[in-house]
């Protein structure tokens, strides 16, 4: 078996009295789409924050390609090729779409204009941003110079997804990327996820939308009370079984539970 692209063992994160991550394990195989499902407050967002450098776990280890890794900031994870669409989207509302797409990795002009005078290559960034939106089939956005705060919720989500798809070079993580999207736009995001996978990158998708999860996921990671309870294949399980695992109505060892791919 090949080494998983991203793994975590025994992650713990406490916020005062609340334990957001309570000894969670995680495995993302190369080239797969892994759905992460769980009730509200189960700790899904906290888990992927720990995997993307946005929070530093109190305990536990993260392994990238089997090598123990410590991300001290989102920048570290980004440098490692991990791109994340956070649930909060992480966009600057008063800035335009192109600026947001390149936030934190602006492109400078070549030559002394860029190296000495730090001059940004705004045209290059704009045209790349436009190409990216076109390539993703995001037609609802009319102008790349539009301020993010003037976009609809779904359009904002599309911008955040476009950014991750554009720069992800190793792993793409999406935390409820379709929550505010219409049927057609959700379908586009699913297409996009498939295209990212076809590029050979594994994708982590957090979603509450069971039909969507069953449509796209290779495996489903079920999260409950801050940790992983089970990992199942969509082919082996029904939606109601997965929901029962999420809520605790069904336990992984139960006779009528679907086959669990990991020990828990």
């Amino acid at each position, binding site marked *: 078996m090949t080494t998983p692209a991203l793994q975590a063992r025994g992650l713990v994160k406490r916020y005062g009295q609340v334990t957001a991550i309570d000894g969670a394990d995680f495995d993302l195989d190369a080239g797969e789409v892994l759905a992460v499902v769980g009730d509200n407050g189960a700790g899904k967002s906290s888990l992927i924050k720990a995997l993307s450098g*946005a929070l530093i776990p109190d305990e536990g280890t993260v392994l990238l390609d089997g090598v123990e890794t410590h991300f001290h*900031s*989102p*920048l570290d994870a*980004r440098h490692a090729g991990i791109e*994340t669409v*956070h649930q*909060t*989207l*992480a*966009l*600057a*509302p*008063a*800035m335009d779409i192109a*600026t947001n797409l390149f*936030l*934190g*990795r*602006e492109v*400078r002009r070549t030559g002394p204009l860029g190296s000495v005078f*730090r*001059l*940004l290559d*705004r045209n290059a960034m704009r045209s790349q941003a436009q190409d990216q939106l076109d390539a993703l089939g995001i037609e609802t956005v009319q102008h790349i110079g539009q301020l993010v*705060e003037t976009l609809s919720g779904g359009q904002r989500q599309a911008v955040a997804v476009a950014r991750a798809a554009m720069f992800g070079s190793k792993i793409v993580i999406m935390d409820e990327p379709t929550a505010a999207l219409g049927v057609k736009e959700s379908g586009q995001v699913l297409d996009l996820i498939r295209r990212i996978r076809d590029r050979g990158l594994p994708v982590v998708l957090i979603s509450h939308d069971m039909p969507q999860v069953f449509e796209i996921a290779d495996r489903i990671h079920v999260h409950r009370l801050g940790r992983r309870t089970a990992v199942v294949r969509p082919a082996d399980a029904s939606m109601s079984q997965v929901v029962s695992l999420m809520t605790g109505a069904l336990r992984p060892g139960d006779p009528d539970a679907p086959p669990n791919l990991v020990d828990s």
Partner: protein
Amino acid sequence: MIVFSATTSTFLTVDNLSLVVQQSLVVATLALGQTLIVLTGGIDLANAAIMVLGTMVLARLVINGSNSVVALIAGFLVCAALGAISGGLVTMLNLPPFIVTLGMLTVILAAGRLYSEGNSYPVTDNLLGILGQGGYLFGQIKVTHGMTLAVVMFAVTWYALTRTAWGRHVYALGNDPEAARLTGIRVGRTRFSVYLVAGVIYAFAAWQALGRIPNADPNAFQTGNLDSITAVVIGGTSLFGGRGSVMGTVVGALIVAVLRSGLTQAGIDSLYQDVATGVLVIAAVAFDQVVRRRSR
């Protein structure tokens, strides 16, 4: 402006306008540093105090026989260090800028008075006073070196804010610091750099102040911090951070200067001028609030 030119016959003369601009330079320079800090969502109540201490350092060193270049360097270092202290407290201890700079204001004012030993210090040095001297005539308008310097400083800051990644990061962290952090921006470092740069800008303000009035007085520019905030807010920069421009601040600083000198020439007591600027800043903030609320 129209009201002032109607009530005072000298207001719209070229000489007088040149004077208004000269008078606005100190507040405009303070407001430039203030703009950077307000864009990050902060506020600097200590800027005028830092500047006044800067003038004291410059004047006393020269009076004690220092070379004026050495004095200038020392003045810049002191102002930059004070900006860095504010920035360090805000970024490393995560304290609210309002409280930090209020504390800095109190400490620096007291330090300035102690350092002054109860005196003010006239400056006769050429280099320290040079910004008040005439550079050349632009048409009929007397352009001082101070004006030229201010134009250069605003242009450079405009460039840094709108044409470099640093500027984008300043706006982004003023928009939403957590979003900025998640996109990989080094939020703490950027915020700190803003306070440091502002400190350097206040040193230029100190130099401008000595060009305008060649006398370092620990009690000068008592309302400089509020005037600079007024200029920033009137110029359209949001006190919530992330929105605004230095070009707006130019306009704001000119409006404050025109208001002050217009009211002076109309023979209105400076206390009433404070009333007028106070009303203006509240009106500008209220306007900002209304606009923001509508856009949410």
